[in-house]
């Protein structure tokens, strides 16, 4: 097995020199050896995430888009809960005719997934009837339902934000008696923890409520365009659909505004390349009225717009801007300089809208018949109806809600640390949520009984061992896919959400050493030095003119797009964040390369071709 995890039988099988080389294939799940030094990884994950012997018969691919790092035990909830929700949505609620849900497995800390299809024609027909009624209802009432969705999801955000962690003081509050509440605080330790998990689950059910229908509308329009215009680029299709007032630009817009306020209030001198957020904030407090003005504007922008995760909401350590000001403060100096030079413009929303409509009108005109134009109008119209959800749901779900969720879990971690079960609040994320449940029971009992909890001896060694295992798992190169190569891979969800197509699989099977291939998501060609970021916390290292190479980008990365010349990601399709933001900034982007972060090193000169979707290391 080489670094990409390909099983090359041509090298190992005793074939004669004349025999054609064996077709390349992927490893089977059962053929994967434990990563060296990480042999105990299974203890971190529930039994229902393990590969089974019969899983060797199916095709799996590494979901590096959502899970680009090895999974800490707690963070597996970001796989368990979403797959529980999306499968329920497609298989049981909307009853998609040809697809059930998505199964996931964890091996060496990495999440692999596969979709379960429906193949029996009679079953497809039975499901289609139910699907038509239910999906039809959502499409026909989309705007109203989506408004209701926003209200519900904001309600969930309020609820998760309101969840408190009992302090468990020596003597409980008097109100338990004076208001005859009758229930002691330790009860609420578990109730409130369960509440967090339950709200997280509900949030994900709502997250997937419109997801497949929204993407479905896009896929249908996309495929129509590809048929009518075989050489149209993915990004041209996306540009006809893309919204203009998209929430995910808002955090970046807020930063631009803060840069303007800094200049206006005369405190712009504090925002210099490499500045330290705490030092700047401290200095502002001493800058009189100007400093007060900026800090007031800052607090206003911060809630809710700084609730963007530096990742994509799937790892506890991808902190939000609000929790870790490094990212916004890395972008501010550049914006401040642009304000000073009179170069910082607002997003030209009118021009963008005009351009979007021009592109759509011109493609429409190029269609052959009036019938096709009428169908085009219907499909594009539907896409524009569903797109506010497609583009905005991530801010509410993965960013705003999830930031609050992880922070509340962190407070439970602080409780466990205070009672000595854990060394540190952050260690709570080394436990699966069912294990946290046990540890909290231990604390509840100990507080009630008056003795010490027994968890210190039990959990502290487990946490230490898991940290060691996670570090070892980081060095393992996950194969992009496992199992038999599928004859055809046309699943729209897999294509749209993960950028995985038949071509991707081909590229995974036959990696070209000199050229890295992906999806050309934003056009143009540039060369420059690479900056490989495998961890979002390194975001402050990016310098002007570099080419960003990263596993996956999220909306919160947008500000660094002002510094870089091009973006390359391991994962992503033409609708991924990196793609959308790169088009917005008019810079080349190649997404869904699979392994660019492993094949490129920081400082190497690379050439990014956003038209062809290739990246070459040139020096």
């Amino acid at each position, binding site marked *: 097995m080489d670094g990409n995890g390909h099983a090359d039988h041509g090298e190992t099988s005793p074939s004669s020199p004349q025999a054609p080389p064996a077709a390349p294939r992927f490893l089977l799940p059962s053929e994967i050896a434990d990563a060296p030094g990480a042999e105990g990884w299974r203890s971190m994950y529930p039994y229902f995430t393990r590969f089974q012997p019969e899983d060797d018969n199916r095709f799996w691919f590494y979901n590096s888009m959502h899970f680009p790092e090895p999974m800490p035990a707690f963070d597996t909830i970001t796989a368990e809960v979403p797959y529980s929700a999306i499968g329920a949505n497609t298989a049981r609620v909307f009853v998609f005719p040809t697809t059930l849900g998505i199964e996931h497995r964890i091996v060496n800390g990495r999440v692999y997934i596969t979709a379960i299809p429906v193949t029996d024609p009679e079953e497809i027909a039975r499901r289609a009837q139910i699907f038509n009624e239910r999906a039809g209802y959502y499409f026909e009432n989309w705007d109203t339902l989506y408004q209701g969705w926003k209200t519900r999801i904001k309600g969930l955000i309020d609820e998760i934000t309101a969840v408190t962690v009992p302090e468990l003081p020596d003597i409980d509050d008097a109100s338990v008696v004076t208001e005859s509440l009758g229930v002691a605080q330790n009860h609420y330790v578990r109730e409130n923890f369960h509440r967090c998990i339950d709200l997280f689950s509900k949030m994900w059910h709502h997250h997937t409520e419109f997801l497949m229908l929204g993407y479905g509308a896009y896929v249908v329009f996309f495929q129509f365009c590809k048929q009518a215009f*075989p050489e149209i680029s993915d*990004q041209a299709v996306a540009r006809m659909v893309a919204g203009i007032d998209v929430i995910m630009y808002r955090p970046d817009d807020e930063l631009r505004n803060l840069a303007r306020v800094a200049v206006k209030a005369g405190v712009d001198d504090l925002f210099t390349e490499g500045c330290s957020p705490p030092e700047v904030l401290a200095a502002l407090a001493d800058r009189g009225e100007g400093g007060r003005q900026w800090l007031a504007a800052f607090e206003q922008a911060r809630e809710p717009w700084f609730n963007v995760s530096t990742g994509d909401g799937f790892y506890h350590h991808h902190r939000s801007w609000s929790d870790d000001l490094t990212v916004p403060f890395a972008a501010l100096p550049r914006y401040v300089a642009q304000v000073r030079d009179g170069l910082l413009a607002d997003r030209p929303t009118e021009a963008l809208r005009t351009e979007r409509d021009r592109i759509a009108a011109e*493609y429409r005109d190029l269609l052959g018949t009036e019938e096709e134009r009428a169908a085009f109008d*219907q499909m594009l119209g*539907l896409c524009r109806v569903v797109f506010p959800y497609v583009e905005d749901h991530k801010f509410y779900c993965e960013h705003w809600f999830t930031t609050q969720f992880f922070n509340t879990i962190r407070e439970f971690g602080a409780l466990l640390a205070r009672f000595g079960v854990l060394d540190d609040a952050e260690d709570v994320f080394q436990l699966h949520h069912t294990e946290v449940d046990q540890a909290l029971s231990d604390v509840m009992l100990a507080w009630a009984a008056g003795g010490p909890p027994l968890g210190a001896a039990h959990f502290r060694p487990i946490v230490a061992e898991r940290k060691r295992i996670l570090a070892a798992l980081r060095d393992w190169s996950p194969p992009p896919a496992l199992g038999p190569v599928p004859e055809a891979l046309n699943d729209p969800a897999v294509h749209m959400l993960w950028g995985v197509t038949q071509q991707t699989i081909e590229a995974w099977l036959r990696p070209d050493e000199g050229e890295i291939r992906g999806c050309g998501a934003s*056009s143009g060609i540039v060369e420059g030095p690479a900056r490989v970021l495998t961890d979002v916390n390194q975001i402050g290292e990016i310098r002007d003119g570099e080419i960003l190479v990263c596993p996956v980008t999220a909306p919160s990365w947008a500000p660094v797009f002002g510094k870089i010349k091009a973006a390359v990601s391991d994962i992503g399709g033409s609708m991924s964040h990196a793609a959308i933001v790169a088009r917005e900034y008019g810079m080349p982007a190649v997404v869904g390369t699979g392994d660019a972060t492993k094949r490129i090193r920081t400082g190497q000169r690379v050439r990014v071709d956003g*038209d062809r979707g290739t990246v070459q290391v040139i020096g």
Partner: protein
Amino acid sequence: MTARFVRGLAEVGAADRTWAGGKAAALGELARAGIPVPRGYVVTVAAFGLVMDTIDPSGAIRGAIGGLPPDDLAALARAAAGLRARITAAPLPPEVAAEITLAYQQLDTAVAVRSSATMEDSAEASFAGLQDTYLAVHGAGDVLDRVRSCWASLFNDESVSYRRRQGIGEGGLAMGVVVQRMVSPRAAGVMFTRSPVTGDRSVVAIEGTWGLGSALVAGEVTPDSFTVSKVTGEITGRRVSAKLRAHSFLPNGDGIAAQPMPTALRRASCLTDDEARALAAVGRRVEEHYGVPQDIEWALLGDSPGCPALHAEPADRIVLLQSRPETVWAARDRAPIATPKPRASDHVLVRFRKAL
């Protein structure tokens, strides 16, 4: 004095095929539409007619050729060669020679002398390539000779046998001749205002090579190719080939030189992205002018192959050498990709019923 036998290209339009020939009509039409073409003039069909009236006053020679059996290639070749010899040997009527000479002197440079048959380049009959073109012609005397060579090329062996196979009579044939300033392009080639591979009308497909396009037309080089979106200007396809040689025009020398390309330039793209986009924009204007997809020959003026682009904008360095309707995809019909449905969402519901 009004010339009878020579007209400036700017005076010619698409409707003038019968007296100017197809190529002149197309070039004149481009010039009228504001598309740059090299300056030049057309020797009208009337001059050809005058000459043929002296060589074959009753049309008997041409009639005899028209009566030969299509499969008797030897007889066809013999008869055609005889007629060609008469055309090239016949002295030009003095008024024709005078007008051509005067017009040439006004161009004051080396020229390309190009056949412009009345049937050539029509969308219906693809005569393209069967008549001669002469590049880098110097001096009035040579121009007069090449004009006669063009006339004679109407009776090339291939042309004659093609017409016999197609059952096209010899009687109504006529030819104009285009005389244009010779260009010395940095790169040249062809473009289609739809994809020749997929028929996609939203893109312009460009092929180009260093120097004159003749190297490409003659199949001596594998050209660079570009696919440019008409709508967004994106370059959705790009293939840079090893262009081992280039044809270049030597203004002070003798005609066209086929030279090996310096190694460093072989694999260099003959067009920048901006140039490709500018070409596509010109192609699109021509298509809009005619209303149907076009097959275009282009040249990009500038220094010699491989030298940096001139400072002028790419759009100001483009000249077109020919444009004709695209014929391959125009002839194909296809079923509509989709038709409207009662509700927009039906498109999605139907799609999900099939395995995607």
